[in-house]
């Protein structure tokens, strides 16, 4: 273990204490007003957060929580040895940039004003593209995608043909999902062999669940259903045959049971028609993978990854709580879709 890694591992151990406990999460979700939420949050390492009076408070909160997560992540990247730092930066920045690109492309596709698109972006500096503003200012969404020539996102240009054929955006979004997973898998090469497993398991299960959900959505589309090969350019733990089966079956529960662990557990809410619960289950599974990775090796990369995974799930839960409180949703309904308070 390099001295750089030891330091960042110890730092991660120390920073784990800054993360919110399930009890604190429950207390936050139980608040009836935004003021109460901010007050409770002020007693945690988040400190006092100022929310602009104008505009949607839940959007402002989401930005605050993203900024906090990015600063936590960058704090680790700055301390980590170069190979691990490069990997972590690429892992998170590519993911966030893919989300930003999707938002830009959607905005361009529907003709949303440029300022609205820019306001919806995750607050990161452009990572592999030159500028988000330039993409937003492109005259059409096709031209925005073509301007990605020369970047790691260049393969998106080939998805334009499908997009034009179906007059839809999904081919571009699916190509971006695939690109995200493949770039992360490629960047795993920077990591030592022992550290790759935890990341591979997380990325794989995420990509598999996303693919499966896309397949489930195609059920009942009949002749309008798109071909499985076009929709799933890359598959991981759930292969193309299984995805095709999910698209064509009348009995989805049989297909899910056939997928085995962990998919049968994560996808079980489909039986009751509550697809939103799948993401909560997925986050809980990722939380479990990170926790087990830490148990297996608490003095290496796994401890660093666990801190970042917990931190990201905390951010997602806090975004959900923030929105729920601004909308006056009951704490019971909010807690239902959170990962950390429900983690057993």
């Amino acid at each position, binding site marked *: 273990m390099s001295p750089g890694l030891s330091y960042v591992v110890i730092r991660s151990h120390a920073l784990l204490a800054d993360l919110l406990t399930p009890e604190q999460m429950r207390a936050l979700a139980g608040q009836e007003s935004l003021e109460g939420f901010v007050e409770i949050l002020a007693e945690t390492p988040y400190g006092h957060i100022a929310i602009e009076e104008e505009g949607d408070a839940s959007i402002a909160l989401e930005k605050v929580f993203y900024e906090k997560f990015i600063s936590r992540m960058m704090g680790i990247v700055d301390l980590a040895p170069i190979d691990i730092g490069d990997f972590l930066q690429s892992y998170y920045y590519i993911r966030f940039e893919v989300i930003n690109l999707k938002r830009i492309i959607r905005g361009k596709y529907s003709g949303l004003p440029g300022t609205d698109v820019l306001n919806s972006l995750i607050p990161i500096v452009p990572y592999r593209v030159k500028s988000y503003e330039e993409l937003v200012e492109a005259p059409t969404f096709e031209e925005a995608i073509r301007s990605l020539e020369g970047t790691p996102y260049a393969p998106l240009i080939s998805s334009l043909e499908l997009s034009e054929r179906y*007059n839809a955006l999904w081919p571009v979004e699916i190509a971006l999902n695939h690109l995200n997973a493949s770039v992360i898998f490629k960047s795993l090469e920077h990591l030592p062999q022992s550290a790759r497993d935890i990341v591979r398991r997380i990325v794989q299960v995420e990509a598999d669940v996303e693919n499966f*959900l896309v397949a489930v*959505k195609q059920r009942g589309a009949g002749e309008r259903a798109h071909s499985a090969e076009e929709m799933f350019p890359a598959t991981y733990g759930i292969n193309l045959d299984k995805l095709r089966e999910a698209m064509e079956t009348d009995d989805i529960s049989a297909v899910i049971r056939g997928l085995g662990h962990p998919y049968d557990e994560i996808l079980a809410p489909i039986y009751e028609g509550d697809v939103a619960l799948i993401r909560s289950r997925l986050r809980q599974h990722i939380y479990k993978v990170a926790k087990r990775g830490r148990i297996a090796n608490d003095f290496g990369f796994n401890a660093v990854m666990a801190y970042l995974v917990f931190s990201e799930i905390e951010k997602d839960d806090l*975004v959900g709580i923030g*929105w*729920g409180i601004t909308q006056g949703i009951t704490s019971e309904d909010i807690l239902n879709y959170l990962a950390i308070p429900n983690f057993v």
Partner: protein
Amino acid sequence: MIALSVTTGVRPTKGYLMEMKRRIGFIERGTEFLKLKRDHLAKELTSSIDVLKGRRSRLLENLRVAYRAVTAANISLGPIEVRSQASSLKTGLKLEVLPRAVMGVRYPFIKVETEPQITGELDITLSEAAEKVLSILDDILQLAEFEARVERIADELGKTNRKVNALENTIIPSYRRVIKFIEDKLDEESLEELVRMKLIGGALARRRE
């Protein structure tokens, strides 16, 4: 202060009496029509309220289900992502509000020009929520239209009732008083005329003797 009675300024002539009688006949016929309208509106309102209660409770239950799906989508995806995905829908909801009338009561009729098209860009969570909202969109519009109709009918019923009451309790009695006043005046005048004639007749007879 000078108190003005209903008979102030009334000309006690036979022509005016005939005009008053013609008017009161017209008003009474109008009152009968208004009563008929009032009864029809009351009947329509009673039956509409029952329908409205049923529709509203059904819609509220469906809305609860749809809102739960929207809540789940927002909590699991985050509000910014939900907005971003929702903005990728190219066709939005376009409505035209046209006027319609029942028994002279105008109410809005909503015509859907274009419905939002979910073309597969949405995440499954949001897509399910959107489908649930879309499935009750027609019910929401129909209920809004029906509520507006019921509201206008209730409003019109109130107005008609006030008109009938005013006619029955104020206008018609006042006309009757005027008519009675003129009739009394005319009777008095004819009696005076008769007495005068009798006196003149008596005086002429005495002169002839």
